[in-house]
């Protein structure tokens, strides 16, 4: 019983101990003697603030939309906007509901695609709004609103949504009436199998194994412009293993735009270039450490005898033609392979 607490919080613990001694006699002897203690009525009251949709737990009180406007402007508008319409820190609270919706109890806008969903469009229980504001808002100072302020600011939100008039006073006595006006009060269903473990699934696939019906056509892929939206994927993968992350962010200024990868079938030369690590430093089109292979092809297009010269350079390595960075020597490579690669490069590295 708060033994450890008494070490660091002696006065509080003593007080509590006194309180608890009084009730100790009444404790039902459980299976685990010495574990836990009865909660005092004040403790239960302090934490039992939840308001259920049947209004169990709703404290007596009231607040006007007028007063709510003051609360809103002082404590809520900075984040949610003057008319609760802001999309800055969270989707809008108000908007998208109509007088027709109030009549039907179904928000028509929810059936349309591409419609944004505001809080009032989704709200099916008024208790939820009250409970949430009382427990969690303002975001940076939760549990700072009084009961009256909570009624008031809830009323104001409802007034902004034209669910109640501007001079409305919301109270524990008329919450049920407001519930009966909520635009989306009939907007939910529990006809699905996702509440219990034994629920029935709504979607059925079969475990076909061979020649299964599928178009196997790509319907959707990441648009090229979104390629770098999540940063450089190369830096989000391990440096060893069966794969690496793709380089998706270019750091060099003036670099070419990302090119969609529609690589042609790899030729034998291309595979050899890969195997020998050439493609670590040379892009086909672009410079990496060394020049792009197409750049090399363009440079030597009309120069005679360049094949032998380039083969020698690959074998021995060297710098100076394209810049100060040297190419390493490739002493282990067979001459015929080098010659083949040079031909392939000069032919456009296809």
């Amino acid at each position, binding site marked *: 019983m708060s033994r450890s607490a008494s070490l660091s919080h002696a006065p509080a613990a003593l007080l509590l101990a006194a309180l608890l001694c009084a009730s100790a006699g009444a404790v039902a002897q459980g299976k685990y003697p010495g574990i836990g203690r009865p909660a005092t009525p004040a403790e239960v009251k302090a934490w039992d603030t939840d308001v259920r949709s049947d209004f169990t737990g709703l404290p007596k009180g009231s607040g006007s939309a007028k007063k709510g406007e003051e609360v809103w402007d002082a404590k809520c508008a900075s984040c949610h906007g003057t008319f609760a319409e802001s999309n800055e820190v*969270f989707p809008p609270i108000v908007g998208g509901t109509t007088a027709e919706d109030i009549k039907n109890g179904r928000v028509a806008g929810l059936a349309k695609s591409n419609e944004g969903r505001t809080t009032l469009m989704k709200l099916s229980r008024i208790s939820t709004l009250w*409970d949430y504001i009382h427990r969690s808002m303002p975001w940076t100072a939760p549990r700072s609103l009084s009961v009256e302020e909570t009624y008031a600011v809830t009323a104001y939100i409802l007034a902004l949504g034209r669910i109640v008039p501007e001079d409305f006073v919301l109270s524990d006595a008329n919450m049920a009436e407001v519930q009966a006006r909520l635009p989306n009060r009939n907007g939910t269903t529990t006809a699905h199998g996702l509440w219990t473990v034994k629920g029935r699934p709504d*979607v059925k696939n079969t475990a076909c194994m061979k020649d299964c019906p599928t178009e196997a056509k790509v319907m959707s892929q990441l648009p090229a412009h979104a390629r770098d939206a999540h940063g450089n994927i190369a830096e989000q993968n391990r440096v060893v*293993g069966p794969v690496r992350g793709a380089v998706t962010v270019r750091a060099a200024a003036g670099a070419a735009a*990302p090119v969609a990868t529609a690589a042609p079938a790899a030729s034998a030369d291309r595979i050899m270039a890969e195997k020998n*690590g050439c493609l670590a430093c040379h892009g086909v089109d672009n410079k*990496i450490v060394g020049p792009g292979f197409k750049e090399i092809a363009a440079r030597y297009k009309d120069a005679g005898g360049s094949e032998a010269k380039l083969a020698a350079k690959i074998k021995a390595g060297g710098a100076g033609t394209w810049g100060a960075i040297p190419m390493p020597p490739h002493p282990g490579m067979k001459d015929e392979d080098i010659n083949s690669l040079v031909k392939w490069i000069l032919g456009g590295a296809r």
Partner: protein
Amino acid sequence: METNRRAGRILPAPEAPAPTGRSGGRRSFLRNALALGGGAAAAALSGRASAADGDPLILKPQPHATALGQPVAALGYGQPSKWEKNLQRRESPGLTRVPQSSVAFAPLQGMFGIITPNGLHFERHHQGWWDLDPSRHRLMVMGMVKQSRVYTMDDLMRLPSVSRIHFIECGANTGMEWSNVAVPTVQYSHGMLSCCEFTGVKLSTLLDECGYDRKKARFVLAEGADGSGLTRTISIEQALDDVIVAWGMNGEMLRPENGYPLRLVVPGVQGVSWVKWLRRIEVGDKHWDTREEVLHYIDLMPDGLHRQYTQIQEAKSVITTPSGGQMLLDKGFYNVSGLAWSGRGRIRRVDVSVDGGRNWRTARLEGPVLAKALTRFNIDWVWDGSPAVLQSRAIDETGYVQPKISQLRAVRGTRSIYHNNMIQSWKVAESGEVSNVQVG
């Protein structure tokens, strides 16, 4: 890479080359390797010997083999290798507007087996996280009970405990992909998923101790101690079945981001019900209809109705290696590896297709295969260099088969946000680049 620089280098390192504009291509990773460690790293990566007589990494004595290493307890709490810094929890840019109410996704693309390391467990908070003093934390059990009771951590940790391995998945995991491909990698498409061994006392033990009303009790409410005071309703059947009031996570205490010192573990159910910084359990006879049951975690259907009280995570799987945003090293052999799980029990089987769902082969399930836990699957694959579309399909012990996105959409449309358990497709291009696609 000091090692490589000294021993393996055959030329002065090229200046760390700035990644250039061209993206993709099988070589881009090598470029990166170069940036990290010079030519020898590239040589090591491509597996070729840079000198005629063999690999210098083998032929030449390395510093770590020829000098003294670090002492014990150099780090009182060990850290991952510095080479592993790429594997981090990350936010998806633009998904949320404020970082205290946001998500950090787990890097599934680099993880092995079924256990999520504590530092990589995904994060989701509504009003920021706290590192609570455990000696000042209290749990109250009240409502329809004979006696409302208060427990300290001392009390709880004296009780008989259980240790169980379970997955936790946010109901909105893969939610961005309902209408089209929106994110590049498995971290962002499936990373609101983790699996740990949780240790704690069964909720049923506490409910029994407090004498819950066996006749009238239908639900319990769980509430967090943070500013959001997050609340969720759980059915009494579940509460009495396998729900745990947990303090342990993979052998140590919970991490603050995951609710230290106390959280609820609700196996098979979406993460929002796993209330963190748990301070109160109330027994009642009706649904509470809290904010997370009325305004969120409701699934919008095409007719404009919201399905309320959806919470079970149906069978799902995803290939993590290779996966979106990765590059295959080369043609040849790969161990295709992934994760499968079901909120309704054990995984019975996982099939894998490399041709976009036309033909399937059954993968090997790695043990242990546990109820409501991640299950690792593996299957051999020899990539011949031609384009491929990889998919995995989980079947759980109820016989339920993980659906295709088209089947899900036919029933639920594209706007329900939650509970997207579609078969994931990864396209492998001839370049070796893997990307997120949806096929039909």
